[in-house]
């Protein structure tokens, strides 16, 4: 078996004096969508931030593509090929849609090379290209946040709550886009909406009170009502 693209090994993260992650371990195989599941405040977002070094783990290792990311600065970690779509989307309001995309370029002209892919997935963005980030609706911001992570040649996308606050029709659209982009990019997904997560991801990891407590194939979890009830509340 080939090595997984991302291995998170027993990381512990503190924010200030709060012990947020108390031992999270899982693997993300190349080419798959893995969903991080768990209740509110379980530590899913902190796990993503710890991988990127935005909240650096105090102990444990994150190995991406054979490289240990310990001690690296967030911008160096991102530049190894990890894209981040945060929960709040973090679209830059003072920048136009095009500038938001350009900012993600790691070499000149990357946006032009990727425009077919990006505007193929999100045709709306091409229409909005000159608008300032503040003028976008929630759904458009979410599309832009995902598109921004697609501009450079990222091998792994960390997507936090893509369906949050979106209308059902937009959720469908977003799921379709993630499914399509996962054909050549590995995705680690945080998703509260279990139906969305179960339809997208092939594998799951459950985080409970800062620790990874269960993982496996999504197909098994869907039929395991006891696990679902125990860790995720009502299914």
């Amino acid at each position, binding site marked *: 078996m080939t090595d997984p693209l991302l291995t998170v090994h027993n990381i512990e993260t503190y924010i200030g004096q709060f012990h947020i992650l108390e031992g999270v371990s899982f693997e993300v195989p190349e080419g798959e969508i893995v969903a991080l599941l768990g209740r509110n405040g379980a530590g899913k977002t902190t796990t993503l931030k710890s991988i990127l070094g935005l909240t650096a783990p105090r102990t444990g290792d994150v190995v991406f593509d054979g490289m240990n990311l310990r001690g690296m600065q967030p911008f160096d970690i991102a530049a190894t090929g990890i894209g981040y779509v945060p929960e709040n989307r973090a679209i830059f309001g003072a920048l136009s849609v095009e500038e938001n995309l*350009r*900012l993600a370029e790691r070499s000149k002209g990357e946006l032009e090379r990727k425009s077919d892919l990006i505007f193929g997935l999100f045709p709306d963005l091409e229409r909005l290209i000159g608008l300032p980030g503040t003028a976008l609706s929630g759904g458009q911001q979410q599309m832009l946040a995902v598109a921004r992570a697609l501009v450079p040649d990222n091998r792994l996308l960390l997507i936090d709550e893509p369906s949050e606050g979106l209308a059902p029709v937009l959720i469908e659209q977003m799921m379709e886009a993630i499914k399509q982009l996962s054909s050549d990019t590995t995705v680690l997904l945080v998703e509260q909406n279990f139906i969305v997560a179960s339809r997208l991801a092939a594998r799951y990891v459950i985080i409970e009170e800062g620790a990874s407590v269960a993982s496996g194939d999504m197909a098994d979890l869907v039929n395991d009502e006891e696990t679902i009830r125990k860790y995720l509340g009502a299914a």
Partner: protein
Amino acid sequence: MTTTTVAAPTRGTSTSRWLRKNRGKLALAAFFAFVLFSGLFMMETNDWIITIIRGLAVGAITFLVASGLSLIFGLMDVLSLAHGELYMLGAYVGWTIYVRPDTFLDALTPIALVLSGMALLPLWRRIASMWTAGKWARIIAPILVGVAGLVIVVVLFPKFPMSMWNLDVYTEAPINNSVALDQGLQEVPPPADFDGVSPLVGIIGIWLGGALLGLGIAGGIERKAEVPASKPGVGAYTIAGGVALLALLIYVVNDPLTDWWYGLGTSPRFFFALVITVVLAFGLGSFIEVVFIRPLYDRLLYQLMMTLGLGFIIIELVRSVWGRPGFTMPKPAVFNGHGDACPGEGLGGMFSGCSTIKIFDSRVRMYNEVFIILVGILVLVTITLVIKRTRLGMIIRAGVQDSEMVEALGINVRRVFTITFGIGVALAALGGVIAAPAIGLNTGMGATVLLLALIAMAIGGLTSFPGAAVGAVIVGLLQQFMIKYGSIGIPVPWMDEPFKPSPVLVPASAILVMIVVLLVLPHGFFGREE
């Protein structure tokens, strides 16, 4: 990529909505316009125009300081209280390069040698990271090494050949150098010699001092580092070698270079002083960010205390090097012409080389008003273009909102912080150099301008770059009108005598306006609402 237009949001009642939303701004703008134009009925039109032009000049200087403050505050949430003193330091350094280039050249060699030794920091960090010792040894040794380096530098620095002014001898004091340059009587000071040490010992010694200083700092960094330093790249060696080579080159050609520099007219000398001061200030600003500000991000109170303390240190440093009393800086010849053809007529007279020109029957000083306002406009346009059009500007605009996300995109935000702080300090120093010929130099000039700049920032909205410009112009105009009314008085119907604002009211009026603006617009004119 094609840009398609999008249907504009429905206008309908949008005009009235806009009016309602911006009624505070409109009311204030109308109020300021009223104050400005009511001046027309209280003074001669000529005086009114002159007062406005002078106000714009004060605004331009204030803007140079305020714009750096707002860039830094916007991007990094750091309020640099040392900014006024950095402006003052810029004036003093600019004065030295302008009036006494020989001293500048003499001092450049030892300073560059120290920096060259410190520039090998990556190598020193690598060495420090390979050193294994007990906990206490790792705490104490870097301090001892660093202090030893500092002592060597402090002992050897005055032994370098340096033709300085003598503060105790009136005829050699800076003020007399200024006068001599202004009257064209300046002579090239005799070259100095190494004092008590051989050149070889001095040069190698002071480089070693810088190296030890770097090693001490490296030891301190590595003690706390989680990951040992990696092997230094070629860049560090190139920079250190290049700086050392420059130091030696300047040492070798010191005398002919000094003679050549003294042979230049005041205009090219002033231009050199401007450019070199701005470059040095950029370097100093970057250094301050890396060494002093970086450890204190997210600790607002400590930053304020640190920058305030830094300001005091700069004041004392300037006092001990340049002396206590204020002194003057002669204007470059191109703005200081006299003769039959002067003053120049109208805007075309700007190129006549006269010290004053006539606009609408009013005499306007070329340097104090025209040149300073032009520099202010040039900086405003340049920085606006950088912010709007370049990738650096894009990163700054994005970083103002969310620097963590910028980092998550793979951009080294720390480096952008360093550059931005450097730009901010460079702008303040530029303000200092161009203000010095107009208002002279004294150690209190920084505090005055800092107060005005902070008020301008608050009026403009703290983090807004155009806001800093608007705020600075409002503050500048207000100052000059208050000074003007101080002499002609404001007629008040129920008072026999016209009301004459006393000089104390001039700075107070700026604070008053800030209070009024912030009561009506809590976020200033262009501030973002949190």
